[in-house]
């Protein structure tokens, strides 16, 4: 049992919950309410601190339920404490346990909500359980590589790079001479388009459009790689930083 995402090493006191002087009892009551509503609605919007704090408890509760099952006394007591609406105890064991049994990553996901004036004066967050029935929070990425403007731009980029490469003065370099001849041949086939203009004995012409396009894209990429490697000889490479993503399967 371990949390599968970065979590704070000190707990949030959530001061001022239910007015001044609430103390730890007010904090735990508020967290119970957030966890209950998360289990009920599977996606909730609240202040960032409450959501982040309740996320830990919800994850551990589901992990306990998966590990021990619904016949285990202390786990039932725990579920009874955390879920204020008692019909959700059944939902926890009968819906979420089978859903998250085999899940190797976190069961929840959090998003930061935009600040909408006048707002609540606090940062808002969205907390959702994975596999919920609602439409996705983030819009699906649109592939714009086939849009005419990008196609034209890519082609122009290729031409520019080819010009650059050909004009590079490395006449003593054996590799350069071989690559130039190879690449110019490749560029010619790409410029011609498909192999339809040549004799039909060429098997490439019998390929469908999609496969041909993929091949062309591959050749383009290899070209680019060769150019970059020759350009960057002697230069130090900078390692790209990977994006932080909960779904990577990495966890603390």
């Amino acid at each position, binding site marked *: 049992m371990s949390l599968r995402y970065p979590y704070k090493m000190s707990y949030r006191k959530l001061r001022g919950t239910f007015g001044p002087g609430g103390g730890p009892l007010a904090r735990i009551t508020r967290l119970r309410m957030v966890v209950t509503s998360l289990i009920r609605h599977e996606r909730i919007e609240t202040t960032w601190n409450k959501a982040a704090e309740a996320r830990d408890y919800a994850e*551990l509760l589901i992990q306990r339920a998966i590990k021990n099952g619904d016949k285990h006394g202390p786990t039932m007591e725990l579920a009874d404490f955390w879920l204020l609406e008692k019909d959700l105890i059944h939902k926890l064991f009968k819906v979420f346990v089978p859903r998250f049994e085999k899940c190797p990553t976190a069961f929840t996901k959090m998003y930061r909500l935009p600040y909408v004036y006048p707002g609540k004066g606090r940062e808002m967050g969205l907390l959702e359980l994975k596999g919920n029935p609602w439409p996705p929070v983030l819009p699906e990425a649109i592939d714009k590589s086939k849009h005419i403007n990008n196609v034209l731009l890519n082609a122009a980029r290729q031409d520019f790079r080819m010009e650059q490469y050909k004009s590079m003065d490395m006449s003593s370099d054996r590799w350069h001479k071989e690559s130039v001849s190879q690449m110019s041949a490749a560029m010619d086939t790409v410029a011609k388009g498909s192999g339809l203009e040549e004799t039909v004995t060429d098997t490439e012409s019998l390929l469908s459009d999609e496969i041909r396009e993929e091949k062309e894209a591959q050749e383009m990429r290899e070209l680019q790689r060769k150019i970059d490697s020759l350009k960057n000889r002697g230069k130090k490479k900078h390692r790209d930083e990977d994006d932080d993503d909960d779904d990577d399967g990495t966890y603390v």
Partner: protein
Amino acid sequence: MLFNPRAFYRSYDRPQKGHEKVPSWTIEKHRDSPLNATRVESERLRHAAPTEFRYIFPEFLPHPDWKKRDRVAEKLQRRDMLRRRLVLDIPEFYVGSILGVTVADQHVPSKQSRFVGICIHRDGHGLRANFTLRNHIDGQGVEIKYDLYNPTLQNIEVLKLEKRLDEELFYLRDAPATHSTITFDRKPETLPLGATVPVNMKKIPLNPPPWTQRWEKREDLKGIDLPELPEKRMRKLSQIVKPWEKYDLMKEYRKNISEEEQNEIFKEVVQHHTRVEKKRHQERLKRMT
């Protein structure tokens, strides 16, 4: 030739080239030394399942606070701890067990001093692991804190292996002396093979107050038989009581090392044990032939 301290100490610290291995006659000498003679192979440790290791070797687990963690230091400490355990048999014991400890003491004619007592506390991580023994001698309560991996510790003998209802028995300081008195010539009691460690359900009656701590406020201590206290003193208890703490999952999570990490740590202990057992089995066979 005159004594050359530089050459002497240089060779002492770093063996000469080609002589890096420890010569076998030193190992034999060590094996035959009286320090090893009283070593008893703990049967329970051999047959214990890895899941029980966190109770048998609690000092192998690191501090749960991430600010106090140093993974490299922890790994090195664990290695040293296992090496020490090859030399000295550190047995399995719990708070509430009765132990007899022999320590090397230069000021005593026999160069050894022995103390017997009931273990009231176990603390520390890694090589800093310690335990406190309490006894009542000649009308005076005595507590001695020992470091488990102290090299001057010559022998740790468990005279009675048992657990109590609590993880710390500091309330014995405010209890009658009879509950802390253990005779020095107590004979060791062994448990049958495969038996679980018994839990002594004794409830200790306390002396009348004043006490060293306000034991009535400690709702986590189950082994105390509280006497009648004035109403004014009991009135504040209802405000202090926190019944939600046992359901606070994150508090428990932050206080302990996660199971996955525990398994990683105890894998090393298991490997060490299997290696040691193999070696000892080979040695036994050699001695028989």
